């Protein structure tokens, strides 16, 4: 006894979730803002996402990558803040967007000023030494560092980078001390290790892969919660006996401020669907990322925890924080 009105009502109820998501649809090309130039980490990921969107037909429009380098992420963040209310602009943030406002007074836009959308990936790392080094485990290295305080050296990025954070946490928890030498580029850091000029480094598993295969590097431990698929025999920091928090390198999505709630939900939904697609799963597996998907609400909480912890770590490291 389906009368037309009840059919319509049924139809409407069935369509309700769809129509909710369809309340907003991007009307023009979507801009995905990254803070690096072409070829930088975020740029590569953003372009991969754009390709996935095309392949899996996830959007009715194109997604294009907009490079806004400069200011250690501050320029990109400020650009997003300027685009208040624009529903077709998104930003791909990384830990740098969270850290720069902590140490640089000039960087005025924090993630709190933008609209969180989703957290996408966590990037684990491994701790590596040169293959002919005398340390077979991380404990051996720490022992050696304790015996010769300040003489062993680690190559890494800036003093606020994850490389140094890991070092600070380990130093605090074990009482050992070793030097940290900053190099601006990944290539130089690896060259410093392979050339024997430094003793240890924290490196992305993908970058280390080939050097390990060729027998030039050895991995002592992994900086992650669970063991990575490609490194089944390497202990995590916790398993190796070091009770330090795993401070991840994150990548996620934010939107300009002043976005209506339905837009946020559209994008959140979109990225959730993206992370379920086979191309995304393959991409993460190939690059040895961890699926760190979090919704907008969880991202907000994560942001607060992360910055609080970073503040503490930086203070311990003797770096002045301005916020």
């Amino acid at each position: 006894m389906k009368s037309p009105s009840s059919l319509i009502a049924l139809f409407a109820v069935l369509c309700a979730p769809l129509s909710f998501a369809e309340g907003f649809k991007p009307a023009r090309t979507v801009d995905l803002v990254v803070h690096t130039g072409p070829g930088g980490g975020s740029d590569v990921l953003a372009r991969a996402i754009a390709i996935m969107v095309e392949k899996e037909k996830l959007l009715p429009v194109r997604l294009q990558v907009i490079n806004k380098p400069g200011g250690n992420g501050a320029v990109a963040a400020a650009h997003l803040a300027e685009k208040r209310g624009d529903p077709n602009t998104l930003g791909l943030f990384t830990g740098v967007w969270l850290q720069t406002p902590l140490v640089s007074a000039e960087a005025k836009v924090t993630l709190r000023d933008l609209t969180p959308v989703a957290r996408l990936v966590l990037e684990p790392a491994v701790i590596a030494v040169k293959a002919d080094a005398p340390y077979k485990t991380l404990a051996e290295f720490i022992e050696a560092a304790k015996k010769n305080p300040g003489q062993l050296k680690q190559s890494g990025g800036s003093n606020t980078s994850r490389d140094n954070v890991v070092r600070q946490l380990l130093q605090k928890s074990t009482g050992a001390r070793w030097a940290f030498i900053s190099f601006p580029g990944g290539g130089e850091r690896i060259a410093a290790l392979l050339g024997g000029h430094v003793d240890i480094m924290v490196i992305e598993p993908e970058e280390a892969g080939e050097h390990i295969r060729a027998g030039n590097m050895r991995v002592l431990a992994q900086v992650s919660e669970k063991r990575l698929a490609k490194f089944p025999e390497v202990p995590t920091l916790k398993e190796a006996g070091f009770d330090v928090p795993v401070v991840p390198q994150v990548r996620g999505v934010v939107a300009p401020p002043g976005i209506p709630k339905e837009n946020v939900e559209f994008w959140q939904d979109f990225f959730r669907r993206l992370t379920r697609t086979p191309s995304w799963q393959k991409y993460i597996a190939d690059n040895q990322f961890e699926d760190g998907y979090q919704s907008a609400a969880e991202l907000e909480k994560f942001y607060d925890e992360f910055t609080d912890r970073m503040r503490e770590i930086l203070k311990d490291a003797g770096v002045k924080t301005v916020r």
Partner: protein
Amino acid sequence: MEILAGLLNGFAVALEPANLFWCFVGVLLGTVVGILPGLGPPATIAMLLPLTFSMNPAGAIIMLAGIYYGAKYGGSTTSILMNVPGESASVVTCLDGYQMARKGRAGPALGIAAIASFVAGTVGVLGLMLVAPPIAKFALSFSSPEYFALMSLGLALVVLLAGRSIVKALLAALAGLWIASVGTDLFSGTSRFTFGQMELLSGIDFVVVAIGVFALAEVLVNMEAREETQLLPVPKGLKNLLPTMQDLKDCRFAFVNGSVIGFLVGALPGGGSTIASFLSYGLEKAVSPRREQFGTGVIEGVAAPEGANNSETGGALVPLLTLGIPGSGTTAILLAALVLWGFKPGPLFIPEHPALFWGLVASMYIGNVMLLILNLPLVPLFAQVLRMPVYVLYPLILGVSMVGVYSVSGSLFDLLLLMAFGLLGYLMRKLDYPSAPLILGLALGAGMERALRQSLMMSEGKLSILVSRPISAVMLSLAVLVLLIPMFGKLNAWRLRALEQG
């Protein structure tokens, strides 16, 4: 023997019609990209990456590499014709190249740039093919003390760029060091000289300063005179549009110089084409019989740096393909591209993918030939640009400068910086301060400070690390010697005067 076999296989791959086509597309695109200031290979390669997925990897890497070294050919064009450096590696070419154009020798300048690029580019590929593994190993022994010594040597060359007043040249170089410090200190996170501007947190882009101080300043200086002079005498007749036999003879050493220095510096992960071209120019000036004329339009002053920045591409591919270590922005993207296609450059790359490696090497020989054939006939065409009346050409130069700067980062702030440095460059010209040392200081400043601090961290504060290691000790001694050259000249003059009086 293996090398020969590998190379023959490589040619078999590179000469496939599809790959030849992609090679041509790559070098053509690279030339165009190089001609335009600001727009560089990294951005172009990144934009083309999605298209390469439907291609076979050999064709793709051949094309992308073609863009990389093709751009080095095109970069000299605006440097010579307009004093606008096409990219940071072409800054040194402006010094003598533009002066040659002012004297009516734009054709030979452009021509020798193409020829030197061809010779050195080919030598670079030869180096990649023959000595890549040992060079890579040598490059690994280079670390911060050696980089500091290398940069000191480069900076010491400022005395050779001095012109009349050494004091002013040194002041310009020191100002360059200062500009290089603007931004966030890598080691401590402290913001230096940012005047509260967030855009300055990542420092001032080298290209912005170079275009401002060279191109903009040049236009402003020329605006002073209202007389309707033809901007630059246009060479007439084919004979004057290409380098003469005498020119080629003068450049004999420059070809060798550029090829070797470019390749070696390129192979260092911390090196780059800017340092390579400065060092090569400095060396050429030091050994040339007409060294006083450098800076006024000497052809070997164009050949040396142009050669260096081309063989540098061959050198930069050495750490990338043998160790998986990218040395510069463009090689970082090439690395990302290779990874995206499923190849992982590293120590096992060549043994596991010989067809790809040798195909690439062979294509680079072919590409260099293509570029020579492409660029030489373009020389007379480009030289005609100078036929334009001044009132069309100068706005054009201004427009190209602004677009070039804007295309680097898309920021209006950079345009403001361009204005500021244009004014600075103009004032420097009026007050007789040479601008090359400023650019030199800027190019080397950041790297030098980093290398010094890294060295002291490695040695736990002992400066002796700089002289206890053989390579850095040698280079530092050379640097000191170079600094003392003008002293010898003055001492000699003094001694002669004393003899005359006594």
